[in-house]
């Protein structure tokens, strides 16, 4: 990153490796096309237009790029799911719904480097054969929508988008579509329904895998903002060189967003698996607050299962078998999965000993109860039940058996729903009870077993 300086107080941490966030908080950087072109912008787009499509898809496959939106699915493999016999139009959608609690990365790309996203999208559209693409931006990013639309207009003006781009014969239109405040629009089939002008009810898979049957029932590739940006860099430095960053099967860099009980929360682009959770908390975020000790970490957005401080995790097999404390966990997809959680969206929420677990879980349950789309009974009813039970817990109105009821409700959602929101809402409750049953039980009152709780006291106590 020679020759680049960053705004004072916003310099990247020495352990960062900035690729997608190279221009975020950069001194003298702005969102204009001129600035972007001045740094070799759209050169990869020009190059891509001369390449056979399959070559780009193969490069993305070879790079090992895994989706940065939540599931960590290999991007090139997903692109390969478009049926080879397809004769329908293909669409590409950039998922800029960024709504997973704890996640705040895509907003900086939209606000500070929109052309990088457009270039990544254009290359991706060309590779999968899409002539029409949408960027689905959450409603709460009004400024981002304006910035991205301005960037699109500039790119059009320069002939980088539109008809017969740079004489290649390839046409591409990209439009911004704004959401309206619903988390479920981040789920890719809910997003597609929303883009079709409907309630964002997720579709059942199979048959509605977007790559086969997505927008307007045509093959549709949905990728996260960060994922699409990486495509540009894979082309620029080559798949092999790109895959040298990160660790095997967990290649490249990714942005971690840290919030909660640390001294200096923030965003950090790191090589996947090259920093540990301990380094993130103690070095990058300045450690815990004075006099506090660590209680728990939610490592990949609020849907990820919680990790408890003090636990030991057995990961790896055979010669590679190791025991890790929470501090030693390398931040990659596979290790976090082996620890029983997930890398998810990169949102790391740090919880210290000042936070009652019942309060934390209740807050999370409030989110899911508000955001369930309501299509599946276990999710629609279960999310509310989970919230009501933890409301009682916070209000000191729960009985010990409520913990089992709560656990049972979560288990009855998990795996029984149309979309992965079911797991997303059940995992916090399941994991908090599995790891913190004693503390949760200590907030209950045995004398309330079988009692009828006055709902007014409850509502007041829960601050509603």
């Amino acid at each position, binding site marked *: 990153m020679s020759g680049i300086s960053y705004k004072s107080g916003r310099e990247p941490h020495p352990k960062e490796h900035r690729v997608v966030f190279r221009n975020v908080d950069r001194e003298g950087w702005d969102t204009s096309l001129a600035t972007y072109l001045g740094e070799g912008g759209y050169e990869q787009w020009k190059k891509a237009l001369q390449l056979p499509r399959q070559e780009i898809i193969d490069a993305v496959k070879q790079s090992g790029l895994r989706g940065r939106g939540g599931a960590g699915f290999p991007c090139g493999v997903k692109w390969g799911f478009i049926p080879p016999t397809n004769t329908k139009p293909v669409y590409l959608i950039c998922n800029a719904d960024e*709504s997973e609690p*704890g996640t*705040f990365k895509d907003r900086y790309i939209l606000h500070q480097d929109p052309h990088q996203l457009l270039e990544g999208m254009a290359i991706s559209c060309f590779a999968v054969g899409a002539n029409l693409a949408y960027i689905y931006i959450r409603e709460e990013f009004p400024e981002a929508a304006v910035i991205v639309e301005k960037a699109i207009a500039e790119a059009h003006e320069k002939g980088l988008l539109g008809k017969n781009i740079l004489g290649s014969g390839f046409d591409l239109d990209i439009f911004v579509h704004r959401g309206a405040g*619903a988390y479920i629009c981040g789920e890719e089939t809910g997003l597609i329904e929303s883009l079709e002008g409907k309630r964002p009810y997720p579709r059942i898979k199979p048959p509605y895998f977007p790559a086969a049957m997505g927008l307007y029932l045509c093959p549709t590739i949905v990728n996260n903002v960060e994922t699409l940006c990486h495509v540009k860099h894979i082309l620029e430095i080559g798949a092999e060189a790109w895959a040298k960053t990160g660790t095997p099967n967990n290649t490249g860099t990714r942005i971690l967003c840290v919030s909660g009980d640390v001294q200096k929360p923030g965003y950090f682009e790191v090589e996947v698996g090259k920093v540990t959770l301990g380094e993130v908390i103690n070095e990058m975020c300045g450690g815990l607050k004075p006099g506090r000790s660590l209680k728990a970490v939610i490592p990949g957005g609020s849907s990820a299962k919680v990790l408890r401080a003090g636990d030991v995790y057995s990961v790896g097999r055979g010669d590679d078998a190791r025991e890790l404390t929470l501090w030693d966990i390398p931040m990659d997809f596979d290790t976090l999965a082996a620890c029983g959680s997930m890398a998810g969206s990169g949102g790391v929420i740090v919880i210290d000993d000042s936070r009652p677990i019942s309060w934390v879980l209740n807050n999370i349950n409030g989110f899911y109860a508000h955001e369930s789309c309501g299509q599946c009974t276990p999710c629609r009813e279960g999310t509310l039940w989970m919230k009501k039970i933890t409301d009682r817990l916070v209000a000191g109105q729960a009985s010990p058996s409520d913990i089992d009821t709560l656990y049972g409700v979560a288990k009855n959602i998990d795996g029984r729903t149309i979309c992965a929101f079911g797991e997303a809402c059940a995992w916090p409750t399941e994991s908090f009870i599995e790891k913190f049953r004693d503390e949760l039980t200590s907030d209950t009152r045995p004398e309330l077993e079988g009692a009828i709780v006055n709902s007014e006291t409850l509502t007041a106590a829960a601050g509603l």
Partner: protein
Amino acid sequence: MSLAVPTALEKEIDDRITHYPVSKRSAVLPVLHLLQHQFGHITEEAIEWTAAKLELEPIKVLEVVTFYPGFRQEAPGKYHIRVCRTLSCAMAGSYELMDSLCEKTGIDRSGVTHHHPIAVSPDGKYSIEFAECLASCGFGPVCMVNDDFHEKVSDADSLLSQYSK
């Protein structure tokens, strides 16, 4: 009664509709956003107008309006405040911020429910609601006032003083 949509706005709406060459219905959200921006909230007339514009039955528009928290069927105040209530912001004090904003603006949230999330100050100047994660969790408490975004809002007075006119 029909909706009085200014010519310039209707032109903007017609232009937006062209972004959806495959299906006009896809333009429901953008049309509603533009109408809400103009009129403050979505009225029955706005629903009928949108339906006519996009050649849909009004119920198709109504079901969208009632689903998304981003569309309001009740008039907000001149300044509509959304305070993030999700975990990281709650840890940073967003519930305390909500209390203090309500106290300073005279807003009574006791009648707030899931379906009526907005409370308005007696003078109609401010309205407030809780929002779910606004995607700036490292810099809470986070809130929005109309389209403006605010991070690390620790003090209700200094926020409100920017919206005092």
